[in-house]
């Protein structure tokens, strides 16, 4: 047992040595200036769920590695936050009322970022000057206001012990065995993507939702893997990124995440630094770190996801393998795609209404 721990520690230390160059001298002048300004602010407030980005432990890992990399002494303070859409609304509410943002970095999904787009909430920054040749269009979107943190495939997770049969397609959940046993998110995450013309189209997606409402037992957030593990619900459709599920699976939970053959789509999680963030330099530094080569390894370690378009990405290899298997390219759903997906966005609103009305008919 002792040997096991020692090996783990040694491997972690070696990995850390590779991951973190620990030399602030290698930084560009712009990044050095940002690090200095962030260091002066002293702390970074982050708010997301306990199983998003590793929760409090993830925040601590970010803090330690970031400080080592940039030669700073910044405290990353985590607090449990509501769902991504709700958190986004909270940030927007604080901004429109001239109040300080509750978080220095807002983490949101492509769809949330598209919804918040009209409020022009986020700072832009010269990301490519921080990491030349790396933090370019593959990482940064919307005129430098959003930094991609990881790619997110549209998928679902189910309890392998209790499921009536192993589902492989979204349409499998219309089968009788799932009646009254599945959950979805209250904000109908992923349904706008399913309803896009590139995936199913609105008509087919709404038809699915009408049948699917009879199968729904309740609503849960994407991060609540415990509710699937315990058997409260047997499957979550869709599961946002499935990152918390993947982590639970790695710890031995009887769950399986599936990227359905009939809905191949990849979108992103982003970091945005609110214009009313109390520590905006700190927020930018954290976003810069998350998008950097080293930061991407940390993100993968915490979420089992990274930006699939970057060289060396683990998720990139997984997506390529899936594309080869189904013989179809994944739809790339960035914020611009979400903004243009009028058909899907409208269908999502309809889906929410249908599901809300039928929510208690078990």
């Amino acid at each position, binding site marked *: 047992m002792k040997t096991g721990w020692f090996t783990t520690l040694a491997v972690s230390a070696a990995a850390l040595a590779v991951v973190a160059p620990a030399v602030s001298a290698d930084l560009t002048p712009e990044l050095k200036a940002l690090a200095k300004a962030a260091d002066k602010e002293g702390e970074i407030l982050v*708010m997301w769920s*306990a*199983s998003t980005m590793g929760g*409090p432990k993830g925040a601590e890992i970010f803090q330690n590695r970031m400080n080592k990399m940039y030669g700073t002494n910044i405290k990353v303070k985590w607090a449990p*936050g509501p769902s991504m*859409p709700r958190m986004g609304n909270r940030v927007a509410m604080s901004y429109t009322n001239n*109040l300080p943002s509750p978080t220095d970095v807002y983490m949101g999904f492509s769809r949330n970022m598209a919804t918040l787009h009209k409020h022009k909430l986020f700072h832009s920054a010269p990301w490519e000057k921080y990491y030349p040749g790396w933090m370019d269009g593959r990482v940064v979107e919307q005129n430098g206001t959003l930094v991609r943190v990881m790619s997110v495939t549209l998928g679902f997770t189910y309890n392998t012990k209790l499921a009536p049969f192993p589902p492989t397609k979204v349409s499998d959940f219309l089968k009788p065995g799932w009646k009254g046993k599945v959950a979805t998110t209250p904000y109908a995450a992923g349904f706008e993507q399913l309803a896009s013309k590139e995936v199913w189209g609105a008509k087919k997606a709404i038809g699915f939702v009408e049948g699917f409402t009879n199968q729904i037992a*309740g609503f849960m957030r994407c991060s609540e893997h415990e*509710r699937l593990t315990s058997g409260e619900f047997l499957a979550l459709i869709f599961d946002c990124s499935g990152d918390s599920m993947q982590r639970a699976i790695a710890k031995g*939970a009887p769950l399986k995440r599936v990227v359905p053959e009939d809905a191949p789509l990849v979108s992103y999680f982003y970091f945005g630094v609110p214009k009313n963030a109390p520590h905006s330099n700190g927020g930018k530094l954290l976003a810069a770190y998350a998008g950097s080569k080293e930061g991407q390894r940390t993100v993968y370690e915490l979420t089992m996801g990274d930006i699939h378009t970057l060289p060396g990405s683990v998720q990139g290899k997984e997506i390529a393998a899936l594309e080869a298997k189904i013989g179809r390219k994944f739809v790339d759903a960035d914020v611009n795609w979400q903004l243009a997906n009028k058909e899907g966005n409208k269908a999502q609103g309809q889906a929410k209404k249908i599901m809300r009305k039928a929510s208690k008919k078990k």
Partner: protein
Amino acid sequence: MASTSIARRLRDSDFARQDGWGWSMFAVVGLLSAFIIVLPVIVFWLSIREGRPIDPEAVYSLVHYIEVFSDSFSYEVLANTLGFSIVALVVALVFGIPTAWLAERTDLPGKPVLYTLMTIGLLMPGFAAAMGWLFLMHPRIGMLNIWATELFGLAEAPFDIATIFGMGWVQGLNLAPVAFIMTAAVFRAMDPALEESAEMSGAKFSTIVRKVTLPLAWPGILAAGIYIFTIGFAAFDVPAIIGWSNRIFTFSTYMILQLNPDDDLPQYGVAAALSTLVILLAGLLSWWYSRLQRQTHRYQVVTGKGYRPRIMPLRGYLWAAWGFLALYFVIAKLMPLLLLIWGSLLPYFQVPSMEAIRSMSLDHFRELPWGLTVEGIKNTAILMVLTPTVTLVISVAFSWVVLRSKVPGRSFFDFVAFLPHAIPNIVFGVGILLFTLYVVRNAIPLYGTLWILLIVFVVARVSYGTRMTNSSLIQIHKELEESATMSGASTGSVVRHVIVPLLTPTLIYAWLWIALLTFRELTLAVILTTRDNVTLPVVVWSLWNASGFGQAAAITLILIALMLPLIILYWWVTRATGLNQER
């Protein structure tokens, strides 16, 4: 014209001759009264503003009311809330009335213990009980359901706590102590003459209860019923824990959803319209309540003669009585607590088995966000000290102005102090949120501070505080104060050296009670908390939402453990003063 007349009456009255202390107390009472009235007025004002209320382009319109009334979901929420409140009321009365009757009208031994347990039972946070019941009767993971389906080979779980009935059941069990406390006083004050006459005429016990005891107690029971119904209507804890994830919304959870929706910015206008409708409903219920109070003389049987309530020997029914009480405590308090402990030790919720026992650990406790938890404890501790202290200082001032001063229209202040009792607290929460965001935002930056919580907690508790100080001050004869005044004492000296020392037992009792209620307060805190003023119950709520059962159960147990020393102190004080049996 009217104001000139009031001013003249004020100038000519004895009150005008008050010293600085008198005027200070009047100022405190006047200011808080104005604030209590202003909050619902702001809520109403914002309910009829379209657009951002402070924007010059905002216009007056009924759009928010139209939105509320045109959405079929509003009616569903209303039906849910009514169903939930009615079930909660029935369950509370079913357990509360017989317990009160047993405590007041029978020879049941150990009554002080019963009183103490029922009073302390009120302090168990609603969200703790709700979590416990979810672990017990959830259709898929509920322990009872799993056992029942396995034992009897059932295809479906026999119980479902995630229904209006289930939620009402849990809320009713939580409110049974309120029904107990309110109806015990009715049974205590009942003249036994009519019951004795009925018995002498050969009526059976059940007939006496049905035809004499219950009709006599009816006004008191109805008053308790209205009060419990109002609490149920605005209850947040139980619907939030059990109903939210099953999309069963009641008024309070729907209101919170409007303040923090999934897919849009906060709908303050809709929340304000909903609040206004609830103020109207509360007004109607209060009017009905006061009518009942006025009619109680029809049922008055207390005469000038000395009398003792009729004590009924339980004889062979003693075990049945204890069985009934034990059943209540086991299902309402003990079982949810045990399930919380069990849930906090498991990686995910499971029924007891060797596998589950092997997987038990303290991981959920270890992995708690301790920095945030400590911050929550610190903020809660500050509020727990300041809220009762400020509330009672203000309550003494209210009581002095209402009962001792001669200021014209002083009974109006008593009415205002009673308002937070009549209007659901959540409305005051919404009111102060809108007040800080739109009225005093730039002048006094209250949003996100502990001060905003302190102010709303004080407003919410001032009804209780003034009821306590009023009832005690009435019992103190004016002669004592007059003697002090004749000896040259100022109003301040009279208050400090005469009134407060005589009120001390009541003040200690009320202080502890308010402190304990502040410690577990969730509804108001959820509306007004940001990350800078987070309280411990809000940390519980956040973890329930963001981290799942295990961590939420763990931190709830920590919260209960932290309450224990105060509960023990409260128990000791009530035993020493006997105050809990008098109220």
